[in-house]
């Protein structure tokens, strides 16, 4: 199966503006940074969470704790995959107990990644509340999960692929939509 580029949905400026808006929304909804923490889902959720942390630091003048979550061990489709996912470390160097945790990922699709991330978070501690921030919400949810903060809503067909690229992982910032071609 090949992927054919269809359109660029966000360039680096658009991503930056989306991060800035989400940072403001997080602060508004949580009335500041008290008890706030950011946890990115590996891989691309982590640099996005880091950028949100930096933006919040810029706005509020103080920093919020930041962690990285690997959800491989919580996937419900591991034994059906042909290619074995490599497990990375979960690094949440602070207690989650009583925290308002904002979970950050690049794309919200079926919701299964987020479900796995919720299980993983709850095994580490007991947050007061968990919110979800995503750069792209592309629809087709299979679970009753919705994002609290969305960079861009992109209605897609299942034949389409959303490709999020971030500088820290891919060497450039951008979101594009591609078509699957047999």
């Amino acid at each position, binding site marked *: 199966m090949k992927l054919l580029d269809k359109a660029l949905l966000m360039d680096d400026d658009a991503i930056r503006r989306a991060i800035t808006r989400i940072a403001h929304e997080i602060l508004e909804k949580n009335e500041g940074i008290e008890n706030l923490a950011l946890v990115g889902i590996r891989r691309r959720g982590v640099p996005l969470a880091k950028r949100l942390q930096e933006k919040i630091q810029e706005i509020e003048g103080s920093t919020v704790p930041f962690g990285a979550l*690997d959800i491989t*061990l919580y996937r419900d489709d591991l034994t*059906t995959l*042909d290619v074995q996912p490599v*497990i990375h470390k979960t690094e949440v160097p602070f207690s989650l107990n009583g925290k308002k945790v904002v979970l950050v990922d690049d794309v919200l699709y079926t919701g299964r990644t987020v479900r796995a991330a919720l299980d993983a978070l709850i*095994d580490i501690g007991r947050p007061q509340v968990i919110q979800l921030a995503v750069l792209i919400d592309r629809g087709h949810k299979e679970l009753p999960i919705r994002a609290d903060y969305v960079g861009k809503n992109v209605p897609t067909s299942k034949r389409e692929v959303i490709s999020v690229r971030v500088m820290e992982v891919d060497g450039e910032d951008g979101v594009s939509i591609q078509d699957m071609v047999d």
Partner: protein
Amino acid sequence: MAWQHKDLLGLRGLSKQEIELILDTAAPMKDIIGRDIKKVPTLRGKSVICLFYEASTRTRTSFELAGKFMSADTVNIAASSSSVVKGESLIDTGKTLDAMGTDIIVIRHAASGAPHLLAKHVKARVINAGDGAHEHPTQGLLDMYTIRERKGRLEGLTVTILGDVLHSRVARSNIWGLRTMGADVRVCGPSTLLPPELATIGVQAFTCIEEALDGADVVNVLRLQLERQKKGLFPTIREYARQFGLNQERLKRCKPDVLVLHPGPMNRGVEIADDVADADFAAIEEQVTNGVAVRMAILYLMMGGSGSGAVH
């Protein structure tokens, strides 16, 4: 890269990349062991049977906990309380377990090659938890994990394996694994307890402990297998302790930051002095913790991503 084998029968023949994959996967597993809730749902619905024809505390419990921490259903079978006492053969026992839908059989057996025989006759994946004096791959892996954790690398280190090498499956797995990873391996013991083929696989053999310890980064002390010493391969335990026992004085020959390992159970005062076993430079308890992490990694690698493309 992904795990490409049906079974894990030994470290001989595993590539450097495969060993690295296991060790890298064990690191996040160790974090899980340190948590309040030591449980992930990864292997939910999978069954792991520990089939032990020999006594064991740490290996069996370690596999059982590794399975349980990953939500697999684990069952222990001790040969002494199974149909083995009625004369059932290993192959028939294996086929029975297979018919119950077992995913992984972990086997320990006094006969070298028993896991290989079982693996040929069952659909379940087979892990060798020690076969005779042949191999004990998970012990070799946890030793390598512990060394890498403490020293940051394996390549270029000098590792001295001390004691009853002849009867030791731990020594063999260590030798294969460490050699593959680029470590320099020495063995030391009474000449009656050193297998003759060592030189052909690039291992230096010593009968003088001082020479063997000179400049070593790691000393892996083997248990003197008292149950296998009825053949009179050395005069007395006391003499063995005097000639080959590891003590503080002898350790001075090693590098200042030497690391001491022992697969357990220890004969304190025989192969290892009390104050060496309990010192900071010994990682004997850590080896036990790392054993669970390494076994979790192996269970994950053998069960995760087992789609049609992954198994040959």
